[in-house]
């Protein structure tokens, strides 16, 4: 048996024919600056090849060669990837329970051991599927298993039936979505719209409101769908305020459980399945252990799975948490848990930054689990920037030196000791001669604060917290300790409420809503701020940018260029080219969503064909030769490049190209480079962009909107995600500049290098779930280092002045 996986001549993307060895049964860390080619090596080469070969010989799946990744790879075993970007899941029905198959175990337990409440006894045996909200046998028929539904109050929608149809529409038609509904109504029925609702016959009224079943869904249904969509994603908009007629209600039939009435009244140990699913996992484990009946293999299996989830640092989750509401790191650990439970050996695991979202304390647990996997005969490869991880790795591979075309070379491979001696790597100096810089002096806030009073959402214990302004404030704490509850669920909704349009969340506009919104997508609704909770001090800030890790667009054709507005400028530039003018090609010809998009592949450049057995293959579209644009568009050149060429450029390449062409584009690009996004392609499709990347693109977009001025608050969520030390340093410089200009930054973070650079840290804890939610320490990093209550303190670094 070979002791190494050997890759020869890896050449996908920017990799430059590199040869590497990855020792088996060891922990290998692949590091390098963002965009250097780490993921191309780990995922696109090692994982893709391992997966493909395994599937090919097992004959379970037909695979088709897409792109040759390397000259030769030997020593491969079956490979499993736990990647963050491909597992951005959006099915709102997928929960921790369904994902881990615990739902199946729990429901079997209830079907066999459950005791119905009085009045709900039945002679028929209970079946496990009756406890599944997603199965037709289990789901409540009214809310379809969701536990709630949206209701429209027609009286409120039309308080005055004497309003004319067209004026109601024009009243709410300031968004394109409503206008399209109006147009569809007119086209479908050809009936006058200059009459009032009161003048309509009953049938015509019903047609207008509820549709005719084919072309027109009905105004009531459309408004309701719109409301459901936007309240899940954005939390309200102007037209909703105008016609305040939609409500989200807990389902009256199932009382919010999403289940049939019988199973909603079946208990074990006094609790229903719904109650168990809302417990923290560690509490649930204790509850199951204490059940007063003999344990079957079913219970043991359940306990084993729960224990594993707790060990891996997810004890603060509950089974009913939806997968889309989990962070990338949490999802990754959830997947990891399922592999650990499987107890396989000889597998190559490839992880993408497994430490994301983990506190220093928790990293040790994760390392123990990874060591256990290795001990059982597996190989683990991590793409990672984390210091602790790099220090303990058995083998290190560094790709670089820089991003994109300036990267793709192997800078180093070997042991940690050897790595310290490597001079060419951008990362190794941080471990030896040039450690991550820490400030010699902390900035003072000058007394202005934002105060949160009586915060008690989720596990927060009626906290009063003062957040100093004018400096960089870090929010630290172990996973589940209440960082997000404090910031994302309390502060942000409060700011939104008070500052309205001055609180910018960077979400998409409503008009991007998909036409047929069947299932509401993604993200849980933001809870409204409880009345008792108060946010004081908003008069101290002029504007607030909330820059989170949500995707930068949901439409098929969205990409960094469209999100940042570069695309609009590019279209204009191209339409002004002599070639375009001569052929009368307007702006629309340079948009994939308009005249410019290839009608055959809808601008994708590829056509997806079904090849049987649940497999698809992407074929280059022969109508547009894979360009996605129509022929006329491709005939227009700007300084020798087509619009497709431009979309294929990385940000850094585009910066050079547009430098003397357009100031607006150049400005945006330069900010993108500064936030470490120089390597990303202008036309990279949204689904392949990670959460950390999305966040930095959003940050760049806001920063590029001219002079930021003073008194602006920036709220960031784990900005270190996906960043190497080198890139972190660049990002910190940018944030420091913002603060020096008189702005404030609040960031939730685990990375000790970033936290050490904060001027003030608010630490939540002491642990996750019910034992979290307290403010355990606050002060400068130097204060925290001395504070015995602080858990993060001992990991922080301070400048010489504080030693």
């Amino acid at each position, binding site marked *: 048996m070979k002791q190494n996986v050997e890759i020869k001549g890896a050449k996908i993307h920017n990799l430059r024919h590199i040869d590497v060895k990855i020792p088996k049964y060891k922990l290998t860390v692949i590091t390098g600056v963002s965009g250097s080619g780490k993921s191309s090596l780990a995922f696109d080469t090692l994982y893709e090849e391992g997966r493909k070969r395994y599937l090919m010989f097992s004959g379970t799946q037909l695979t088709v060669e897409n792109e040759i990744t390397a000259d030769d790879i030997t020593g491969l075993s079956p490979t499993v990837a736990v990647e963050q970007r491909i597992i951005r899941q959006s099915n709102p029905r997928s929960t921790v329970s369904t994902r881990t198959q615990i739902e199946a175990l729990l429901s079997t337990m209830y079907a066999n051991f459950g005791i119905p409440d009085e009045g709900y006894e039945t002679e*028929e045996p209970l079946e496990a599927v009756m406890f599944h909200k997603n199965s037709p*046998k289990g789901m409540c*028929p*009214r809310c379809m298993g969701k536990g709630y539904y949206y209701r429209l109050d027609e009286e409120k929608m039309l308080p005055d039936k004497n309003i004319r149809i067209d004026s109601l529409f024009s009243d709410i038609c300031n968004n394109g979505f409503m206008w399209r509904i109006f147009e569809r109504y007119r086209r479908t029925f050809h009936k006058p719209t200059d009459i009032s609702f009161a003048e309509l016959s009953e049938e015509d009224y*019903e047609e207008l409101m509820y549709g005719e*079943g084919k072309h027109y869904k009905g105004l009531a249904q459309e408004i309701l769908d719109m409301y459901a969509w936007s309240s899940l994603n954005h939390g309200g908009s102007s037209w909703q305020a105008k016609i305040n007629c939609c409500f989200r209600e807990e389902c009256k039939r199932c009382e919010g459980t999403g289940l*049939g*009435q*019988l199973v909603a009244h079946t208990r074990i140990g006094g609790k229903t399945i719904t109650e168990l699913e809302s417990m923290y996992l560690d509490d649930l484990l204790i509850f199951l252990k204490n059940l007063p009946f003999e344990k079957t293999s079913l219970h043991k299996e359940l306990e084993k799975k729960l224990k594993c989830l707790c060990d891996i640092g997810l004890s603060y989750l509950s089974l009913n948490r939806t997968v889309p509401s989990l962070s990338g790191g949490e999802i990754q650990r959830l997947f990891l848990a399922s592999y650990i439970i499987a107890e396989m050996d000889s597998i190559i695991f490839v992880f993408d930054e497994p430490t994301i979202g983990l506190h220093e304390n928790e990293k040790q647990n994760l390392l123990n689990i990874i060591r256990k996997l290795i001990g059982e005969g597996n190989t683990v490869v991590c793409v990672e920037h984390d210091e602790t991880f790099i220090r303990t790795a058995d083998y290190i591979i560094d790709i670089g030196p820089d991003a994109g075309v300036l990267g793709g070379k192997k800078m180093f491979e070997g042991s940690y000791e050897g790595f310290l001696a490597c001079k060419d790597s951008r990362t190794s100096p941080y471990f030896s001669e040039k450690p991550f810089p820490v400030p010699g002096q902390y900035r003072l806030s000058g007394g202005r604060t934002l105060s949160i009073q009586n915060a008690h959402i989720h596990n927060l214990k009626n906290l009063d917290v003062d957040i100093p302004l004018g400096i960089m404030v870090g929010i630290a704490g172990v996973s589940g300790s209440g960082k997000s509850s404090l910031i994302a669920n309390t502060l942000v909704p409060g700011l939104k409420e008070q500052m309205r349009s001055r609180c910018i969340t960077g979400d998409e506009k409503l008009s991007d809503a998909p036409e047929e919104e069947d299932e509401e997508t993604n993200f849980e609704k933001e809870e409204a701020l409880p009345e008792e909770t108060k946010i004081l001090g908003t008069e101290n800030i002029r504007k607030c940018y909330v820059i989170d890790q949500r995707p930068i667009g949901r439409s098929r054709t969205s990409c960094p260029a469209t999100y940042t507005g570069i695309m609009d400028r590019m279209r204009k530039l191209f339409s002004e080219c002599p070639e375009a003018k001569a052929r009368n090609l307007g702006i629309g010809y340079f948009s994939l969503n308009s005249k410019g998009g290839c009608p055959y592949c809808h601008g994708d450049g590829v056509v997806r064909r079904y090849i049987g057995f649940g497999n698809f293959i992407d074929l280059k579209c022969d109508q547009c030769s894979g360009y996605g644009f129509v022929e006329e568009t491709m005939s227009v050149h700007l300084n020798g490049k087509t619009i497709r060429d431009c979309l294929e450029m990385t940000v850094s390449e585009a910066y050079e190209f547009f430098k003397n062409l357009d100031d607006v584009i150049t400005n945006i690009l330069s900010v993108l480079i500064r936030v470490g996004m120089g390597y990303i392609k202008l036309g990279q499709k949204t689904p392949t962009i990670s959460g950390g990347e999305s966040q930095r693109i959003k940050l760049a977009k806001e920063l590029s909107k001219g002079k930021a001025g003073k008194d602006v608050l920036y709220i960031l969520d784990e900005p270190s995600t996906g960043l190497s030390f080198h890139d972190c340093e660049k990002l910190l410089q940018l944030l420091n500049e913002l603060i020096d200009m008189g702005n404030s930054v609040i960031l939730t973070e685990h990375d000790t290098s970033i936290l050490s650079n904060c001027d003030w840290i608010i630490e939540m804890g002491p642990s996750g779930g019910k034992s979290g939610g307290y403010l355990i320490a606050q002060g400068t990093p130097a204060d925290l280092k001395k504070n015995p209550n602080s858990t993060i303190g001992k990991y922080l670094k301070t400048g010489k002045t504080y030693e």
Partner: protein
Amino acid sequence: MNEREKHIHEIMASAHHPQVNSIVIWENGEIRAECYFNGHHGSSRHNIKSVVKSILSVGIGIAQDEGLLRADDRISEYLPEFAQQRDMRHRMIRIRHLLTMSSGIFWQGGVHYHCPMMDAMLRSGDWIDYIADCKVKDVPGTHYLYKEFDVILLSAILTKVTGDAFDYISTKLFQPLEIHNDRWWHPAGVYYSPAPDRESESVSALTAKEMIRIGQLFLQNGIWNGNRILSGEYIRSATGPSPANPGYGFLWWLGKGWYGCRGFGGQSITVFPDQNKIVVMQASVTDRPLSYEDIVFAEL
């Protein structure tokens, strides 16, 4: 055994349909052939399964003729659960939509009535309340979907307007046609024949010749022994294509040159108006949804 019966026996000998128990042919005013298999005979009763839906349609027709209801009435006028706006489209549902299986109410079918939503409804104890809590997925009248809910609602409406749907159908249809039928299953106050177990279901069992009479009533345009039982107008509606499904009328199936009733496992009444002919078939029910349309449409 006449020539025609011999012919049928020959066909059946080579047709491999061991479950078929009776085939009866009526043509031009009289029974022309009566064939029974597997020890069955002229007074053997078979559970008629979903043929009962078509009989319920007749009941609704008679009630409309008597002015008790109209097909265009909104069901919210009769069922208060549908007047509570639990779903905003409830008010659009009309009796006509129930008759044509196009109420739009959400339904996930299983194999015939062995379906999860029926089980849940039966467990609930209040059927109408359960159905009124189901989402209206499609605009009423626009999408055909064969489902039990629509029929159950109709049955409840018929009871509402007549006092008792079964008594009404017995008096107005079964007695004049001399059809014997035990009281239908009604555990939750709503008559509904296809029960979850065979025991309760066996009460809606007819002989093959009784089934012929249902077809005969339609062929005779609603007249029985000189008395009008059902209006010709309703029969025309019931056997004419509905907007959401051209192969379905008012709980009656339609095809080229025929209309009729179908019940699970091969129970059928098929009327060929142009030939002035009716074919009735009965069969033992298995777990599989078998049908014997090859025989029904053969030259018998």
